[in-house]
């Protein structure tokens, strides 16, 4: 039992690496461009499909396929932002949602039309990496591939962090994120920064998609679930924080694998429930903050409730100093 839990904790934490990679792209877009791409998961699947096709049909070695696919996807992200997203964002918050969900439907069904409904995997193309593992003392099994994915996640997020902190592009992206108009006045093109962020986001999604196909199987309709996991990781880790996505991804991964111990269906549900709990906690914290702290806001609620129950009786003499605190 104890071994099982330890194993689940370890595997869940490593799985978090995969979630962190796909969530980092989403988080970057939300933080910098204030744009949620609902087709983010479908981009991941597209990246996986292209890599699989290059490897299986084109006979290109896996690593080379990935090296060809990633820049192509980056270019696609850049073009997509320049043509679709930028235009959609001019129409307020509504159009981006409509455009990207339409894009998702087009991608999923287009991929189904091109590649069919068969599940596909890169597992066979990466040789022993797909099953090789280390055995730790105590009989704990540590897969090499999950470790590789986790290390990649740490490296990618670290590199992204350094890029944002140290390079010219990173400064432009950060400046645009905090105040697009002020950045424009200082000679930063917010358009270019947004397009660059979109290119990075799609590249990260595609990289995550490759790992998804190495770990297991993908179908043209795997995308929406990946978007949901990414969104959950972003919200759990704190919206707009890159380091948070790694933590959020690990929390999601661990809760899923612990849920999986209870029942096979429990895995997804556990992840969803952790997400909902974090959301409830965060919203009630904000609510309390807006009402002068937990004590004051609970006191106000109690008074309101009492008034409602007693049918609008006058307020008590000593009301808590809620207004002063707020």
């Amino acid at each position: 039992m104890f071994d099982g839990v330890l194993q689940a904790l370890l595997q869940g934490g490593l799985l978090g690496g995969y979630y962190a990679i796909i969530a980092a792209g989403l988080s970057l877009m939300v933080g910098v461009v204030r744009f949620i791409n609902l087709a983010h998961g479908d981009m991941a699947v597209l990246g996986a499909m292209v890599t699989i096709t290059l490897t299986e049909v084109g006979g290109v070695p896996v690593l080379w396929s990935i090296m060809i696919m990633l820049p192509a996807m980056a270019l696609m992200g850049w073009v997509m932002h320049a043509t679709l997203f930028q235009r959609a964002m001019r129409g307020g918050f509504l159009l981006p949602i409509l455009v990207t969900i339409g894009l998702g439907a087009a991608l999923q069904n287009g991929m189904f039309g091109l590649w069919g409904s068969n599940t596909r995997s890169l597992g066979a193309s990466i040789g022993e990496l797909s099953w090789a593992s280390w055995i730790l003392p105590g009989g704990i099994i540590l897969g090499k591939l999950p470790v590789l994915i986790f290390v990649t996640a740490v490296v990618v997020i670290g590199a992204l962090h350094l890029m944002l902190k140290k390079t010219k592009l990173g400064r432009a992206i950060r400046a645009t994120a905090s105040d697009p108009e002020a950045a424009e006045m200082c000679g930063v093109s917010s358009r270019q920064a947004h397009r660059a962020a979109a290119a990075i986001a799609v590249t990260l999604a595609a990289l995550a998609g490759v790992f998804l196909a190495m770990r297991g199987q993908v179908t043209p309709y795997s995308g929406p679930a990946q978007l949901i996991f990414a969104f959950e990781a972003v919200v759990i880790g704190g919206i707009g924080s890159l380091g948070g996505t790694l933590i959020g991804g690990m929390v999601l991964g661990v809760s899923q694998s612990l849920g999986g111990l209870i029942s096979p269906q429990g895995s997804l549900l556990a992840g969803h429930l952790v997400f909902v709990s974090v959301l409830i906690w965060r919203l009630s914290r904000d609510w309390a903050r807006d009402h002068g702290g937990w004590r004051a806001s609970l006191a106000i609620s109690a008074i309101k409730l009492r008034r409602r129950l007693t049918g609008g009786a006058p307020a008590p003499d000593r009301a808590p100093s809620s207004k002063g605190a707020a």
Partner: protein
Amino acid sequence: MNRHHVIAGISAPDRRLMAAGGLIALGLFALPLFGSALVVDKLTLLMVYIILAVMWNLLAGYAGLVSVGQQAFIGLGGYFVLRLVESGMPPFLAIGLGGFLVLLAAWPLSWLVLRLKPAEFAVAMWVLAETIRSIVMFDPLVQGETGRSLVSLNAIDPDVRRTTIYLMAVVAVVVSLVLSHALLRGRLGGESQAIRDDEEAASSVGVSTLRVKRWIFLISAVGCAIAGTIWLASAITFQPRSAFGINWSIFMLFMVLVGGLGSYLGPVLGALLFFALQEVFGDFGAWYLAGIGVVAILFALFAPRGIMGLIIGKTGQEPLSMRKLLIMREG
């Protein structure tokens, strides 16, 4: 001489349109007398689409709440009916009660999601739909992915069943159209449009944005649930993956976007068009669905107010507009 403003009443052309709508409804009620079984089945589906489009438009077009998770209520409505029928309730009673149970479920959810930012609301609704689906799949009755049929409906004579479900669907469409008309012409309509156009300005003149949004959210949830129960009653089999599928949201979005977001008649037009497209191109399967996605993108980018917007652009006025027109009176 005393000048004051009043809100304009319903115009003469609009009254004629409403009378025509009433006649169409009467025709639809009489249809089972002479229509074939196939026609009745198809029209039931069309009615389901109209309800869904009207409900999604209430949310997105009037309250500014874009949800990609309304399938939560479609699926939940179906699930509640399944549960009630299995516990021995007559099926047609269960279809009505299912909507009420969804109202009870949607109320606490509204507390949570309406406090989110618009884009977060959209995705959070989707995640909630998935969460509810995972929970429903735990019910041994549903047997995970397998699903279950409304066996007791099979016991009813097929013609009686078909006609009853169809008539329920027509009633539901009429109720949702009349009810949303009354709501939008009234105070809630004015308040919701004010919020949609400028939330801060609306709240600064004393509109309780949360209350208005909650009302519309709840109405839309119940409407989607009733559409879901009618759909389940005609499809018989409840499968979590299709009942809670994201496709519902894509269809709703397509109908409302193409018909005309934020107009009263737009979603009805959109539902008719979507239904026709599905009849003609539905056999193309995935490519058809991909096409639906592409058309939605094109409309969002180039004609965000849909066919209705194009009509308004041509004629200069919206048929059955819900906007408040102030006219000056002297006296």
